Structure formats: C-alpha cells, structure tokens
C-alpha cells in the first residue's frame, strides 16, 4: 500500500516543457486520513475466527478424510452422479414440455381444457413430490396389469421400473410448477404483439409459437433455471423408489464401509459442483434470451477479462451489441 499522493496530475506532459513562469502551480493533492472502517475489520476477524473453529472441529471429529478423497471418483459414485444428472435433465425436459402445454391449455378459451389444466396443477402442486413418487412406486398394488386395449399389455411392475417411477414422479410434479411459470411468462407479453401477429394473418398456433413464446421465454427462463437446480437436489428423493442415483449409491457405500458421514460429504461435493456448473450455464442462457430487450448486452465475466487485458495494450473496446 502506498500513502504517497505526489504523482504528477494525469495528462501533464512527462518531459520538461517550457511553461510560462506565471502559470499556476499544480494544486497540491489533499492529504487526509481516510475513514477507518472499524466494523469491516471486526466482522472480518469474527468470520475468520468462526471458520477456523469450524475447521478445527471437523479436523478433530471422527472423520476419515482420506475416504472422501478415495471415494469421490469411485465408479459407483460417478455412475450415481450420472444417473442424477440423467433423471434431472429428462424430468426437466418432460416437465417443461408438459408445462408449456398445460399453460396454453390453462389460458385457452375452451373451458374444458382450461379446467383440466387447472385440476392437474391443483393436484400436483397440492401433494408432496415424495408422496407422488411413492404413489407411482406402489401403482402395482391397485393395477397389477397395465392394459391399454389393443395397444399394450404388461405387468405393472415391469413397466414401473425404478427409473420410470423416478421420471414420472419428478416430471409430472415439475410440469405443474412449470405450467404456472409459463403462464406468467405468456401473460407478460404485450397484447399488441398478438394483435400485430393476427393482423398479419398468422393463426393462433403460429402466433403462440413464433411471437408469444419466444418473448415469454425471457420471463420463463430465470425461474426455470432455479427449478432445474432445485430438480438436481429434489432428485435425491427418488432414493425412495430405489433408483440408484447419487445419494443412493453413496449411501450404499457409506453403510457397507461405515463411512456414513464421509459419503454424505462426497454426495454434497457432487451436488454442489453440478448446481454450480448449471448456474453458470443459466447466466449465459439468460443473456442469450435478453436479445432485443436491451440495446446492448452487458459483458460476460470472460469478456470483461478480455477487455481488461486489451486495455493493457491500450486498445479501446466497448460493449458488444445485442
């Protein structure tokens, strides 16, 4: 840190130049003692102290840290993380598609479709997802055979594999939430847009697909990103339907190797890595769909780094146009 303030004022020429004698001398820079931010120092010390205490507590706890490292990339753990990702992505995709359909149905002029969508949302939002998963899992108790006349017939237990239970349970529940998010998004689009589109001769369907939904996405995407990050974590509930995702695969290792806590750490690390990666992805996705709503997009962190680097080479650069 420097406490000298005697640099020549910016813009003044470096070498000796003939300055007329009568010129006013460069103003003396203010020498003042800066405000002391005592609170910042105190809070910083307190936080560091607490962290040290926490770290110490964990280091004294009966934890085999090496087990965490050893098992982090265990092939069952990695496979479990892969399944968590798979089931989350599939459930989300299905949930979004069904959610959009439900939202359009809900807003439809047809009272029957609107009412059906309302009923669906009412049921799936009104019951815990855990209960829904168990319902799918135990479906065979009341329908031993799945029979769609002339098309399909099979034992329910063959159809309702752990994977199917997990997928249906998560996706159908998600659809109810996505429907409400999409509805809000669709309703946020100015009515003038629909009118302009209709006036051009576009049908209801084309208007929805080409004009309304793309604009609704800007409103829909941020909460959808949150939903997906939630989904990554909620997917741990499919433990209950014996689908071998991350939590289940780590817990199995934990209970056989008596490293219960260690394996929960392993699971936590994987969850936090996955949610962090998708948070970054969400940032870029939101940026992409801000096109047309801002005159120029703000720089991404990476572009800012590049601009700063370029500034060292004295190359000016501005914002990126949308």
């Amino acid at each position, binding site marked *: 840190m420097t406490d000298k303030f005697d640099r020549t004022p910016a813009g003044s020429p470096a070498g000796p130049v003939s300055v007329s004698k009568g010129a006013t001398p460069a103003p003396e820079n203010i020498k003042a003692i800066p405000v002391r931010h005592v609170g910042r120092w105190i809070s910083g010390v307190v936080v560091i102290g607490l962290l040290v205490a926490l770290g110490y507590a964990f280091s004294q706890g009966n934890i085999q840290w090496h087990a965490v490292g050893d098992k982090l990339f265990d092939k069952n753990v990695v496979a479990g993380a892969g399944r968590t990702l798979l089931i989350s992505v599939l459930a989300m995709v299905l949930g979004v598609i069904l959610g959009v359909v439900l939202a359009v149905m809900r807003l439809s002029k047809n009272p029957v479709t609107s009412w059906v969508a309302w009923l669906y949302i009412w049921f799936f939002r009104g019951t815990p997802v855990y209960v829904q998963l168990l319902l799918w899992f135990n479906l065979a108790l009341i329908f031993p055979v799945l029979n769609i006349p002339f098309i399909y017939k099979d034992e329910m237990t063959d159809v309702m594999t752990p994977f199917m239970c997990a997928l249906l349970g998560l996706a159908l529940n998600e659809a109810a939430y996505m429907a409400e998010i999409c509805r809000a998004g669709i309703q946020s689009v*100015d009515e*003038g*847009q629909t*009118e*302009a*589109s*209709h*006036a*051009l*001769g*576009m*049908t*209801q369907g*084309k208007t929805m697909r*080409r*004009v309304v939904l*793309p*604009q609704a996405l800007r409103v829909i995407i941020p909460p959808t990103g949150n939903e997906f990050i939630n989904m990554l974590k909620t997917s741990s509930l499919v433990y209950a339907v014996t689908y071998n995702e991350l939590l289940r695969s780590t817990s199995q290792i934990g209970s056989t190797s008596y490293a219960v806590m260690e394996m929960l750490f392993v699971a936590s690390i994987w969850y936090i890595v996955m949610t962090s990666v998708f948070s970054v992805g969400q940032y870029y996705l939101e940026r992409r769909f801000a*096109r*047309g*709503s*801002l*005159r120029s997009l703000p720089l991404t962190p990476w572009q800012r780094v590049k601009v700063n680097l370029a500034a060292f080479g004295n190359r000016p650069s501005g914002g990126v*146009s*949308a």
Partner: protein
Amino acid sequence: MTTPMVKAEGVHKSFGAAHILKGIDLEVAPREVFCLIGPSGSGKSTFLRCINHLEKINAGRLSVDGELVGYRQKGDKLYELKDSEVALQRRDIGMVFQRFNLFPHMTAIENVMEAPIQVKGETKAVARARAEKLLDRVGLSDKAGNYPTQLSGGQQQRVAIARALAMEPKLMLFDEPTSALDPELVGDVLDVMRGLAEDGMTMIVVTHEMGFAREVGDALVFMDDGVVVESGHPRDVLTDPQHDRTKSFLSKVL
C-alpha cells in the same frame, strides 16, 4: 360499378354494456385514401379493428372487397368463420398500430420477413429479397440488422409499415401511426404513407394530422360518439364543416 374495398352497413359494436359503435355506414373505394377523424373515445380504433376482425361486430354488415368479414353467408344464414379462415382474410389487410408493435425479438428485416414465410410459406431467400426492397423503400436499408429497441420511434413505425406491406395487402389500415412520435419524426412516416397513396394503395387512416388529411386524403369522415357525423372531401369538411360538433372539434385541433 366497382365493388367498394370496404363497405360498412349499420355496424354496431358493444363491449359489455358500453355501446361504442352505433350504426356506422360508409364506403371506401379502391385506391382511395380514406381519413377518419374524431375526438378520443369516439370509436375510431374500434371501427378499424372491426375491419380486420380483431373485434367482432354485434350488428350490421361489414365487407372487404365484397367478402363479409368474419362470416360466410349461405342463403340467409351467417356462419362464423374458423380461426384459420379469419387468418386467411387478414392476409390481404395490412395494419399499422399507434405503438408500432414490432416483434422485439426479431431484427428489422426478420420482422418484415416473418409473415410471408409463416403465412404464405415463402422461402427465406424470396422473403429476404422482398424485405430488402421494402426496407429500402421506407429508407431503412442500413438498419436491417437492428433490433426494434435500437431504432427510433419513427424508424420503428416505418419498419412496421414495411412489415405490413410484405404481405402485399390490398388494403392498409393506419391507426394514428404518428401520434406516438416526436414531432420531428412524423414527417418521415407521413412521406412513406404519401408514397403509398401515390402508388394507388387503398388506405384507411385514423389521424390527427389534418395537414396530411387535406393534402393526401380523398375522403374524410368525422366520427363522434360512435356515429358518422359528417363526411365528404377533406378540403370541404376541414374548411367548411356543416355540423356544430365537427366545427367545435376542428376548432380545437386546427
């Protein structure tokens, strides 16, 4: 006798209990520039929106180029048209809004290309070629890649006109196309409209620009409280109004 481009006979429109249009009778000839003036709330926009069936009329008959708007007549019975059939009718009627209503997620040229591709099934190349020509016509060929937020109000409105023209309509509806614009931007938009009029486009223009009405208009109607109060040649109505209501309105706006 040629078929009128627009023919309204006793058109009524209510929103719930509010009776807005109380029997409108008028005819717009092909290639005519037809101006519609009147105080705020008199139902001008509502009438314009009835012409392309954005609003359903409650009584009377409204036809465009000899075809009933929104209905099909068989014998003495009227059948409501399906969504897709209404869309088919609207292809031929362009509309320009007070607040532009450009699609904000598309660039200027994409706005112009959208309907021909989606509605007429044109190829991108054909649509793009026409869009370029139209943007040039409204003086915006250098702004083709801009999003609407990157354009001034006057430029947005000219893109909106190009977008409507891309469907090659036989009738253009303008709903106060310049009233959301700063005064210095009004001229560019009016110039484009003047050019359209010279090319023989049939236009119905709701406007407060009396200068434009006098100079370009072939016919003018003064509406108040949901009825046509006075109509005639713009020169006559604007300089020598016959009705008191027209007089008092004109004295306020001129």
